[in-house]
């Protein structure tokens, strides 16, 4: 029995290591390419070790495209969106959980339905609407809708608020606290872990978003990294060291964020998928 368990464990390790190689190799290839010369990229057979190591590719990337400007744009859109989405969702989730009123459940089902609605169904009229407002070519179409909350964040926060005992609110009411005070002074501070999870997910979605910036950011001074990189790829299709350097730089913040917030992340996934 013990020997069989040992054999089984060995098989598990071999499979896990082989899989890990499949998952890591593309990263290694990305880093390696970003440090190669323009000539070494097209070596046959492909070479894994950059020789010489071209750190200057990263400087070249900065001069080839206004990388820092795109980075600043991305940071601005992402941080604003996260702040708007999380603030509004925190308020909305309170109305969907801590106060009882007729019609609440029906409206909550509407909110859930928006999560499975294909975005293509609303895309075109939204574009026409923003066009008529003169907002196409500005950041406004990307950040203003965030003020109305994210269905996912509302769902997540509502789950969290609902688990807070009602006695806390009731005793505050007896002390004469208004509903807003209960929300802002009692419930919100308790909900910090859920707010962190929601912020994390929205950060990743906005940072990586491609379709919305593609449609709305027509002015190249407003490009986000996603669009700037795609633009570079379509004008300099063979500039693989630069493209890989850009891809890597765009991924680094997300990867760091994941390392620092792994627990928050896993907690969010399990609330959304398993307990929902």
């Amino acid at each position, binding site marked *: 029995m013990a020997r069989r368990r040992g054999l089984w*464990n060995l098989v*598990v390790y071999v499979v896990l290591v082989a*899989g*890990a190689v499949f*998952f890591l*190799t*593309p*990263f290694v*290839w990305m880093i390696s390419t970003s440090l190669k010369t323009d000539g070494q990229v097209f070596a*046959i057979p*492909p070479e894994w070790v950059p020789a010489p190591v071209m750190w200057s590719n990263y400087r070249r990337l900065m001069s080839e495209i206004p990388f820092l400007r795109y980075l600043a744009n991305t940071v601005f859109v992402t941080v604003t969106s996260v702040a708007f989405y999380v603030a*509004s969702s925190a*308020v*909305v989730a309170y*109305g*969907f959980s801590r*106060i*009882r*009123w*007729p*019609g609440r459940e029906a*409206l909550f089902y*509407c*909110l859930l339905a928006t999560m*499975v*609605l*294909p975005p*293509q*169904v*609303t895309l*075109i*009229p939204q*574009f026409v609407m923003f*066009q008529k407002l003169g907002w196409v070519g500005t950041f406004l179409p990307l950040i203003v809708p965030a003020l*109305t*909350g994210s269905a996912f964040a*509302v769902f997540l926060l509502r789950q969290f608020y609902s688990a807070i005992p009602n006695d806390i609110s009731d005793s505050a009411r007896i002390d004469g606290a208004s509903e807003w005070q209960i929300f802002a002074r009692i419930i919100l501070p308790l909900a910090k872990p859920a707010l962190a999870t929601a912020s994390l997910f929205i950060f*990743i979605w906005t*940072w*990586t978003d*491609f*379709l919305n910036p593609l449609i709305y950011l027509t002015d190249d001074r407003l490009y986000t*990294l*996603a669009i700037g*990189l*795609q633009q570079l*790829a379509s004008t300099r299709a063979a500039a693989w060291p630069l*493209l*890989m350097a850009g*891809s890597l730089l765009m991924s680094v913040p*997300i990867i760091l964020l*994941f390392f620092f917030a*792994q627990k928050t*992340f*896993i907690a969010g*996934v*399990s609330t959304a*998928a*398993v307990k*929902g």
Partner: protein
Amino acid sequence: MTRRQRRDLWLGLAFVSPWLVGFLIFTVYPVLASLYFSFTDYNVVSAPRWIGMRNYTDLINDPLFGKTLYNTVYLAAIGIPFSLGLSLVIALLLNNKVRFQGLFRTVYFLPSVVPAVAAALLWRWFLNPDYGPVNEFLWQLGVNGPGWLADPGWSKPALILASLWGVGGSMVIYLAGLQNVPVALYEAADLDGASRWQRFRFVTLPMLSPVILFNLIMGIITSFQAFTNIYIMTGGGPSNSTLVYALYLYQNAFQFFRMGYASAMAWVLLAITAVALVGVFRTSGWVYYEARS
């Protein structure tokens, strides 16, 4: 209604009002407007002109529409089982008490948070038939590698291969589900002398089935909306072999400015999604729900 109830109604509405306003402006109105646009000829510049069912009959006669449907269903029908199966296998392996569990979990999960643009560029280069390491590896094995994204016969399998790199997302969901399986069930199975396979078949699988259903639904929804990775990896080519539904819809709307036609496509997409989801729920007898306390 008592005063208290009326007060709570107004309070509740006040708290949800940011969402309610957004729901009306950014969802309800656009859904109705796109239904209206789908019966019109509309190029944004001039006012929409009513043409009845023309967009829908044109869709049926549009060979590219059929082609995009075929491509999308192909990618979903092959891609979803592969990604659900692979992520389940990885999750099951990682759920064993293995050393470096955290490290493995990170390695498998990380690719799924890489921005789609970056991942798409990376895979375009990784699968390069002449200069990429995949074909070099195949060549070492004595196999002459295919043209991958450049070959109409291989472009769809190439997209599926690239998408499997991102299965970490569903893997984490499976892991969360596995963590929720009560240990007592496994202990009972052990007492009954269950084999490893029987433990999996009669304990793990039923307890995990709601999570499998969740991943299946998410898989269907996302594969019908696949856009960014394909836009960047192939742009729909070669010979339209990877022209998927959302990409063709985007082209009609924002490159050809056929907003009416694109709106009709959006409504067909909505109908397809609804039918697929109802179909999945109707046939979800295999899902085991434990009695909720």
